[in-house]
């Protein structure tokens, strides 16, 4: 290693209009930025008609350091003047040769392709229609897969179904419990004040029962399922696709839908109502706790709940859950199967699974709201 750790820059006027720029010392990645600033500053102070660069003093250098020499010899720092380089040691000349020609440099940043608004609009429409078609095809494939599994139950791979039940269902109980309990508490507290104005605090029981059973429990558990398991399905299947495991299944003559998807959709559809019913119980319990602290007795609350809640409310809530479960699990698997190549692909699929899952939950819930209103259920 050279004892000289810094770069030396010197500019001297030569006879006539010329000047000699002397560079020496270490011209490497640690000194290059400073040295270049100095070169630019010196050149700015002097008007030169011709420039000679004396590089014989450079005793250490690398590509970053040689970048200055490249810029100088190409005249990039002295417009209108073509400097002459002398005295550069052969090992550094080697480095200097690594720099590409100017037209190759211009190609480094090609202008991004821009599309007009109509093109964007058209592309978005086409992609939406394609996605719709993919979803329909997928639904068809799942139905086919289920039909095949019905004929030959062995195809269902029940162990996999049990694993999904455990991961997506049992393991979700703590978070479902916490969120449902807090929702019950919050709704009861929020309802208490306005109802108190009418002396109607006992109706907290009606409210908590109806809100949790018909709306909040199905929706929140579905959103939890989308975030936990829809995302997991997309990531699992997406990773399998990236690792060519799906191709392996395909070439073994195994249908990935029948092998991976129907188990998840079946488990999702079946466990969602169970989770949702559990959430209803916990949510209502949260409300009851608040009411008990307000001085109501269990008997009062129970009578009020029984009067407000009907079997049809529970049926509406539970039937929604079946649909939500199928949608969340199906979308998770679909996005997983649609995973493209590249490092972001699995992440993108996961995001799309969760976003599409939550969106569809709300859309389907709206449809249910209209239907139940029209049918007076």
């Amino acid at each position, binding site marked *: 290693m050279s004892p000289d750790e810094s770069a030396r820059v010197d500019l001297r006027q030569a006879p006539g209009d010329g000047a000699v720029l002397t560079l020496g010392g270490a011209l490497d*990645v640690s000194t290059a930025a400073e040295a270049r600033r100095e070169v630019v500053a010196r050149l700015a102070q002097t008007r030169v008609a011709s420039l000679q660069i004396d590089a014989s003093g450079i005793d250490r250098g690398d*590509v970053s350091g040689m*970048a200055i020499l490249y*810029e100088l010899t190409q005249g990039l720092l002295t417009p209108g003047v073509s400097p002459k380089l002398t005295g550069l040691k052969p090992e550094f000349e*080697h480095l200097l040769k*690594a*720099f590409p020609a100017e037209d190759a440099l211009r*190609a480094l940043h*090609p202008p991004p392709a821009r599309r007009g608004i109509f093109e964007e609009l058209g592309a978005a429409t086409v992609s939406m229609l394609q996605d719709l078609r993919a979803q329909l095809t997928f639904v068809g494939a799942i139905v086919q897969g289920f039909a095949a599994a019905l004929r030959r139950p062995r195809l269902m791979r029940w162990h996999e179904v049990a694993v999904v039940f455990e991961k997506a269902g049992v393991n979700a109980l703590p978070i479902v419990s916490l969120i449902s309990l807090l929702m019950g508490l919050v709704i009861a507290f929020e309802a208490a004040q306005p109802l108190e104005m009418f002396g109607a605090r006992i109706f907290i029981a009606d409210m908590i029962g109806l809100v949790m059973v018909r709306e909040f429990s199905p929706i929140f558990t579905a959103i939890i399922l989308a975030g936990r398991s829809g995302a997991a399905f997309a990531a699992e299947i997406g990773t399998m696709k990236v690792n060519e495991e799906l191709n392996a299944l395909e070439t073994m003559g195994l249908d990935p839908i029948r092998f991976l998807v129907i188990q998840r959709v079946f488990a999702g559809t079946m466990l969602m109502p169970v989770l949702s019913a559990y959430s209803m119980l916990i949510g209502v319990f949260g409300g009851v706790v608040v009411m008990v602290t307000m001085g109501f007795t269990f008997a009062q609350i129970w009578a009020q709940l029984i009067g407000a809640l009907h079997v049809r409310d529970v049926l509406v809530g539970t039937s929604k859950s079946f649909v939500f479960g199928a949608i969340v699990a199906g979308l998770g698997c679909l996005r997983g199967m649609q995973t493209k190549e590249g490092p972001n692909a699995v992440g993108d699929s996961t995001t799309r699974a969760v976003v599409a899952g939550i969106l569809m939950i709300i859309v389907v819930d709206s449809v249910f709201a209209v239907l139940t209103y029209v049918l007076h259920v």
Partner: protein
Amino acid sequence: MSATATVISVEDVTIAYGDNVIQKNVTFDVHAGEVFIILGGSGSGKSSLLKAMIGLDRPASGRILFDGDDIVTAEGEDRLRLLRKFGVMYQSGALFGSMTVLENVRLPLDEFTDLGPEEKDLVAAAKLNQVGLLPAAARKPSALSGGMQKRAGIARAMALDPGILFLDEPSAGLDPITSAGLDETIRSLSRDLGITFVVVTHELQSIYAIGDRCIMLDGRTKTMIAEGKPMDLRDHSTDPYVRQFFLRQAEPAATGNGGTRAS
């Protein structure tokens, strides 16, 4: 290759994951400017040794010195300074998929130098030119072939002009022509820039083409069983496993006919 100054000293290094010992008491030196090869069969601990040398994993015991400084115990600024002495090309290239090839090579320059944007582009372009990848500068890694990704990995490893490059299985997964091209790149970088290479590989062709010296790790005895020039080991090693490796023979030589003939 002219100098024989030691740039890396591996001293009595034992690598283990928990109770599972991978290699015991490995000791060797890497000299300035040479292409040094770490050989061994699958599972012999080549990659684990490499990981220890580049500071990713901590060996169970021993020292790994770069110009006298131990990377095993170095922390904070000292460790950063040591990390700046070398670049690493990972087996898969490990390019950042969200960036173009040029941006990948520019990243270390962006993070660790004060160069202006044009100079960084210029330096990155020169690096890509050195590995013959300039025409692909604006492409994303996913649009590159395996060989090109490895070249880009080398260019990125060289971004800050380190004196040492570690290459993890540069020929793995490449066709013979691409692999030979990569070997030529390594050779020319070593010859023209005096870069010291530490290469993990088990491709015999590559070993002969680029290797100045090598060591061989044995997964069964969990020790280093040979050190020397590849040709010498092939022709003169007394260890049956070493000869078997170089002669590309299948079964253990204990009872076979490849055991005692050579040398």
